């Protein structure tokens, strides 16, 4: 990251709040990160941590006004020198598909069942290339299907989504997302609905395509294994806020935040000795309407008492714990390292 140039994607203090009858749902409440071209950022968190809402607001896909009023979006999202929060819907619509594209979790609901796969890819291509003839666009669609590894693409292009298997549908959706060579690709749980053997194929495909096109990729998932496969940097979210951010290698080797410890400890792992018991995170994820005071994680944190009450009163901010590695925790760094070395690391 150079100092003078702005990074390719830069999110600054993003807040997305939804007004509801029960109160304001603070889905994302102060999120900042940067992403360069050619790099992959993994956003990890449980359901309700705000990871999908983040991706939808980057794409400008939050409905402008529902029955209960529009979501309140504030902060800045700079994509290649342009602020998407301030830009009008028409401008965002131009960028969407062209400069940024998204892969959704469930390809069967994300694709239109009445149109052939080819027609849907062609539509995306021609929307951003008005001068292109149908024949050329179709050629481009076949080319893309071939690129994502669909056998007999010249025949498959005329199939409907239901004629594809789950893995092929996900491939077709990747083809659709990449048809305009976007420089930002957001993959929201791209493999959650797939079997492990197919998941491995899709993860490989995303990795290869990124190398080929050099785009920036955000991968959103709850599976720490999937981010470890793909991501260069990882952002862990909890209750709408980032709790830890750092390079993948250091984050997995020496995680700083007790929530990250909890996530790692609660996963059974094939690459480790079998443990007698898993160590779950106690309690349940917080309500986003009444987010716990201070550190949102404090009701579930086994070390909250060690901060002398700061956990309940003061909101922690991301602070550097190691080079490029930030964590939002009130525990003193030395104390955190001691706890991790003594209590957490032996269990992982």
């Amino acid at each position: 990251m150079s100092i003078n140039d702005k990074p390719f994607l830069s999110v600054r203090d993003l807040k997305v709040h939804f007004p509801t009858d029960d109160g304001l749902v603070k889905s994302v409440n102060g999120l900042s990160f940067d992403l360069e071209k050619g790099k992959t950022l993994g956003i990890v968190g449980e359901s309700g941590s705000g990871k999908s809402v983040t991706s939808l607001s980057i794409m400008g896909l939050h409905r402008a006004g529902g029955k209960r009023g529009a979501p309140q979006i504030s902060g800045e999202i700079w994509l290649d020198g342009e602020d998407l929060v301030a830009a009008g819907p028409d401008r965002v619509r131009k960028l969407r598909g062209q400069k940024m594209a998204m892969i959704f979790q469930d390809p069967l609901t994300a694709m239109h069942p009445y149109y052939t796969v080819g027609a849907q890819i062609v539509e995306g291509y021609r929307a951003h290339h008005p001068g292109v003839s149908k024949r050329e666009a179709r050629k481009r669609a076949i080319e893309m299907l071939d690129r994502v590894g669909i056998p007999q693409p010249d025949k498959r292009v005329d199939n409907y989504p239901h004629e594809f298997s789950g893995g092929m549908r996900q491939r077709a959706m990747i083809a659709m997302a990449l048809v305009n060579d976007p420089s930002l690709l957001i993959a929201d749980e791209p493999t959650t609905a797939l079997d492990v053997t197919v998941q491995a194929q899709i993860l490989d495909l995303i990795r290869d395509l990124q190398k080929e096109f050099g785009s920036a990729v955000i991968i959103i998932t709850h599976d720490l294994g999937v981010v470890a496969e793909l991501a260069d940097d990882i952002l862990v979210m909890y209750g709408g806020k980032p709790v830890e951010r750092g390079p993948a290698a250091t984050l997995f080797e020496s995680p700083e935040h007790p929530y990250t410890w909890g996530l790692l400890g609660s996963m059974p792992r094939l690459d480790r000795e079998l443990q007698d018991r898993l160590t779950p995170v106690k309690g349940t994820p917080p309500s986003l309407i009444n987010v716990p005071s201070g550190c949102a994680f404090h009701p579930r944190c086994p070390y909250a008492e060690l901060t002398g009450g700061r956990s309940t009163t003061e909101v922690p901010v991301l602070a550097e714990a190691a080079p490029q590695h930030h964590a939002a925790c009130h525990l003193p760094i030395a104390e955190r390292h001691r706890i991790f070395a003594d209590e957490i690391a032996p269990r992982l």
Partner: protein
Amino acid sequence: MTDSQTAAPQTATVPAPAPASDREPLLRVTGLTRHFPVTKGLFKRQVGAVRAVDGIDFSVNAGETLGVVGESGCGKSTMGRLVTRLDEPTGGKIEFEGADITHLGVGAMRPYRRDIQMIFQDPYSSLNPRHTIGTIVGAPFRLQKVATEHGVKKAVQDLLELCGLSPEHYNRYPHEFSGGQRQRIGIARALALKPKMIIADEPVSALDVSIQAQVVNLLDDLQQELGLTYLIIAHDLSVVRHVSDRVAVMYLGKVVEIAERDSLYASPMHPYTNALMSAVPVPDPRRKERRERILLTGDVPSPLNPPSGCRFRTRCWKAQDICASQEPPLTAAKAGHQVACHFPENSATE
């Protein structure tokens, strides 16, 4: 017929792992098949069959946990529904405590329902939204007309406590609970009649990671406390490894490998098991460079028209002519380790 068969299981309501006869497994399944007919035309002429479960054999001993893994469409859920008799097998035999329950009718099956209970995958659709938790968890008592010592309410509250919920939840509705809590409610309901065996179909796959571990630990505690026998169906190999004593791997309606847990995970013999394990993403970025991964190409073939011989041969890198012509039987390759493959791996290592 009903009288003689109902007598035995009804007297045995104690949850202890009844060691009736020493080596008699609690559940034994032989040659179990389920073909779903595919019909065509006005007269519903049968033109084919989806061979969801196509001849599987296994047994589960009292007090142990058998894990069943496989990809979607391999028939593992259908197998679970057959064993609980929620679906009618087209062939084969299911024996529970030595009694044949394969084709029992609704009435004759009822006494066995107390002993075999099920936990479902989706805690959002497996609880009736219009019923209170008290009604849901108390339903088994009413349906089976079981008398409780201090009334149904007390029994339900005890169950809720056993599963880590609060007795005050008795009058609440399912929508007031989170996914993990709902799954606990489902578990409480399954435990109501002190069953001997619990069949859990993907019990944790709909839950968040941190909650998943809570439920896995709860299942573990309950097994030790109540001496339960589990048949756990899941697609997640690491969860299955954590909970099981023995593991069966299914592919296209067949069991391709069944073994003691440690033997299976340390030295998988079927190429498919090997490929499955190498495909599991591991939360360790340093490992991704140096591990060798077996990438399977393509998708699982259709169970409408499975490949001849070995069903895995179309995706197998070791396949030869014999694999297409001859179906490999499930045979014991070493102690406690059965595999159905003509060219098993890791066999020379021992």
